[in-house]
């Protein structure tokens, strides 16, 4: 029932106004703690200090995919249930997802230079993340091309769902096409392949970045609701004077 209660934008604004300061505080604390833990983590015997890029790279790479899942859920909310906040959530998530994807690409590239000897390689994972980035940008372009927000929402929802089907296909197709990136080493059969001194800071950073996404997402949703109210007021004012 909570989701239905939140359908009222005013109630959503009131709730998030109370939650957001706490969320910002917790995120900042956890981020600082995670950074400190990452700083204290031992260097890799092969890669040296560059392994610490991982603490930023991996959480961002996870979030780049997680945000598309959030947008897919929001797209279903828009198309199936016509939830009034679903399209606001989808619209607010797209630039955040693009940003996380971009950070994952940049940190990965900086990490690749000392370890693989190249900034960019047409490897399966990097290519599929790059395509994910392009799809985020296309989605943002679609949001901006339509003026009426509710029509833009439905168009973007369809593209999000098609993208959700396509992303696994791209992922597997480029996997067979070319590969250099290491396979998944955390969630795999036989347990994690990372020592706990590195694993724990990584998990803290992943949680911190997820909270960062939640905070920014709620704040962006608030902005979007307020922006729509301003737009409606401006249109009412314009039609009243005409």
């Amino acid at each position: 029932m909570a989701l239905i209660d939140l359908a009222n934008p005013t109630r959503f604004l009131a709730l998030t106004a109370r939650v957001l300061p706490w969320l910002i505080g917790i995120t900042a604390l956890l981020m600082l703690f995670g950074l400190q833990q990452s700083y204290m983590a031992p260097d890799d015997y092969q890669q040296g200090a560059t392994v610490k890029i991982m603490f930023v790279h991996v959480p961002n790479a996870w979030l780049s995919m997680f945000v598309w899942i959030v947008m897919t859920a929001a797209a279903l909310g828009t198309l199936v249930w016509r939830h009034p906040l679903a399209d606001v959530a989808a619209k607010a998530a797209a630039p955040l997802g693009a940003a996380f994807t971009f950070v994952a690409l940049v940190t990965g590239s900086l990490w690749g230079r000392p370890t693989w000897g190249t900034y960019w390689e047409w490897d399966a994972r990097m290519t599929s993340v790059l395509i994910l980035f392009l799809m985020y940008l296309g989605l943002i372009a679609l949001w901006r091309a339509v003026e009426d927000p509710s029509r833009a929402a439905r168009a973007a929802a369809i593209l999000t769902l098609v993208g959700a089907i396509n992303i696994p296909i791209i992922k597997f197709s480029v996997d067979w096409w070319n590969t250099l990136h290491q396979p998944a080493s955390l969630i795999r059969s036989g347990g994690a392949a990372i020592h706990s001194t590195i694993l724990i800071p990584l998990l803290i950073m992943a949680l911190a970045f997820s909270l960062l996404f939640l905070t920014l997402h709620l704040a962006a949703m608030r902005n979007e609701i307020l922006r729509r109210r301003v737009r409606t007021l401006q249109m009412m004012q314009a039609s009243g004077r005409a």
Partner: protein
Amino acid sequence: MTALGALIRRDLLIAIRAGGGALIGVLFFLTVVVLIPFAIGPDLPLLKRIGPSILWLGALLASLLTLERLFTADQDDGSLDLLTMSKTPLELTCLAKALAHWIASGLPLVVATPLFGLLLNLEPTESLTVALTLLAGTPALTLTGMIGAALAVTLRRGGLLLAVLVLPLSIPVLIFGVAASNAAALEPSSFGTPFSILCAITLSTLVIGPVAAAASLRQGID
């Protein structure tokens, strides 16, 4: 059924009679194939090696070029409103339009491929294999492109956005199309796997494409 048949017949007649629509795509395809040797130099062994990729890329761009016409003409003269309001399910209407569009603009590309292969120093069998992979792959390009065309038709600045939306979706088709063509040239025994996957992608877009295109047309109308 007759309504769909009449729609296919109408779209084909428009494509053949009005403005030479079908041949523009082939002409663009030819231009792309001709431009490549200018860009990389007339190195025949290199052209032979990358020939299948060039043919695939040219066909992909040519099919993208003609996609915009899939719905815009119908929207301009108002028949798109009639199609969305008719008793025939919009999904089937979209499928019929995609079929007509593929016959008018995809099939000529496939037919022209063996000829263009000669320009790239490909053996006749290699050219025919590329044509075969294009025959299996171009329907997928049309069907995924139709989703983008249906999204873009309701926008005023649709043209460039269409390319941005459609090209990332067509990457798997390109990968497996080129993989199958190259496999046929290098070791014929490994042709089956990428070709089967290419066919599988085409079949799944056959389901996803019309449904998604119909959904985006509906949201654009009301």
